[in-house]
């Protein structure tokens, strides 16, 4: 029993951590595109990124499930390359990345669009390329936006339920995360166990947010 609890909690935070790292890598370029691009395609991209905010998770989960199934074009392609996404940890990562995308992209995008144009230009006139400017000047100065994005994406992935239920099921040590476990324990009237999961999530999430906001406030004061 105790072992199962630990396995589930580890899996939950592992999923959140992997998702957050991937989101950070794709979120920064995507946010930069949304903040600075002037193409017409931008509104379409913005809409797609924001969809998970309003769409019921079951809708996203349903379509992902269809896409992952070996009967579909994508699923067939993946299966032929030895990748199985339905009811697997990798599939959960893909679903979580899509589902938490706006939580990473929006804070970074809004922080980026608040950086004055002249900061970029000053760096260019000092001989620095766009990429060097981004890494050495811009990212350090929007770290509050990055931290918000990381925290929100992490916390949102920990709390995810609908998508995981649809595409992951409830396989211990593979797709059984804490939010699913709570539902499962309650269904089998095992309230004590449900409490253990729920309270752990509650405390851990509270602690993470508290630490980050305290640190963030200090670093912001340093910049002012």
């Amino acid at each position, binding site marked *: 029993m105790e072992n199962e609890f630990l396995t589930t909690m580890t899996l939950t935070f592992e999923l959140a951590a992997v998702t957050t790292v991937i989101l950070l890598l794709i979120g920064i370029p995507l946010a930069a595109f949304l903040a600075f691009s002037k193409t017409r395609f931008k509104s379409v991209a913005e809409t797609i990124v924001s969809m998970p905010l309003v769409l019921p998770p079951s809708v996203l989960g349903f379509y992902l499930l269809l896409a992952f199934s070996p009967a579909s074009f994508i699923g067939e392609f993946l299966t032929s390359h030895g990748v199985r996404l339905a009811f697997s940890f990798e599939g959960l990562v893909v679903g979580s990345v899509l589902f938490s995308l706006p939580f990473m992209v929006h804070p970074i995008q809004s922080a980026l669009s608040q950086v*004055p144009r*002249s*900061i970029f*230009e*000053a*760096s*260019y*006139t*000092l*001989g*620095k*390329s766009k990429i060097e400017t981004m890494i*050495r*000047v811009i990212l*350090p*100065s929007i*770290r509050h936006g990055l931290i918000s994005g990381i925290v929100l994406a992490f916390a949102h992935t920990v709390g995810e339920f609908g998508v995981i239920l649809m595409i992951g099921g409830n396989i211990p040590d593979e797709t059984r995360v804490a939010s699913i476990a709570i539902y499962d324990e309650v269904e089998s009237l095992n309230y004590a166990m449900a409490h253990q999961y729920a309270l752990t999530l509650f405390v851990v999430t509270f602690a993470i947010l508290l630490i980050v906001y305290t640190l963030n406030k200090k670093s912001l004061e*340093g*910049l*002012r």
Partner: protein
Amino acid sequence: MISINVTKTLNTADGVLNAEFSIEIRNGEFLTLFGPSGAGKTTLMRMISGLETPDSGVIEVDGEVWFDKSKKINLPPQKRSIGFVFQDYALFPTMSVRENLLFAAETEEQKQGVDELIAMVELENLANRLPSTLSGGQKQRVALARALVRRPKILLLDEPLSALDPSMRQKLQDELALIHSRLGVTTLLVSHDIAETVKLSDRLASVVSGCIEKLCSPMEFFSPQTLSGKLQLIGEVLKMEEDFPVTVVTLLVGSSVVRTVLSSEEANSLSIGSHAIISTKAFNPIVIPVKH
């Protein structure tokens, strides 16, 4: 020698403006672009720096082509030897004063020059402070020093002092003049401050609606007539008090308020807010310093 011959269509507040700039800047000179807002002064500077692209034309610096539309040459700002000082300073907020300068340095030699530059703008005591803890004048000094780190061929100053209070402005003007005479870097300044222009520049280019109307010394521009024995001032009418048969007119000349008595007839041609020339015979005017 910097020779510029470019055109660009600008979208200004007053509609579309077809700008056409043609100018030759001598090496080592201090040239001020003077003129009303929206005339294209800043755009010209941005085209020289590569931050904006002209529609057509050529920009050549010491024989090196920076832009040539017909040959499809357009060096990015990174490849042009420029120092740009922005109106809003544009300091990097997470770097200290010294780090801001070191960021610009590319060679060992430039890195070693950083401390000298910090000393030149008198910021030794603040070298480890973050920009957010500095005053406006201090920030602008950092921006100026940072723009000089790479020993640019041209220093571009886009209204660098406009956000500062008058006394700080004056101090920085003195420093700018000193730095220019010490380093001899070709300097382009955008300004609409007469005092600043007269004090700093070797030549003045008057920019009016997208072209350079006049290129001459600042003295020639601001007082075209040679010594005529007449003192002429231009003022704005603030107040008119009718006291028949005369009218007391209050004018703002520069930052001084002047009151004068006119006949009601003379005053008829004036109205509040209009501009008027005050002229008086002054063969031998008295000029004495103001005590603060």
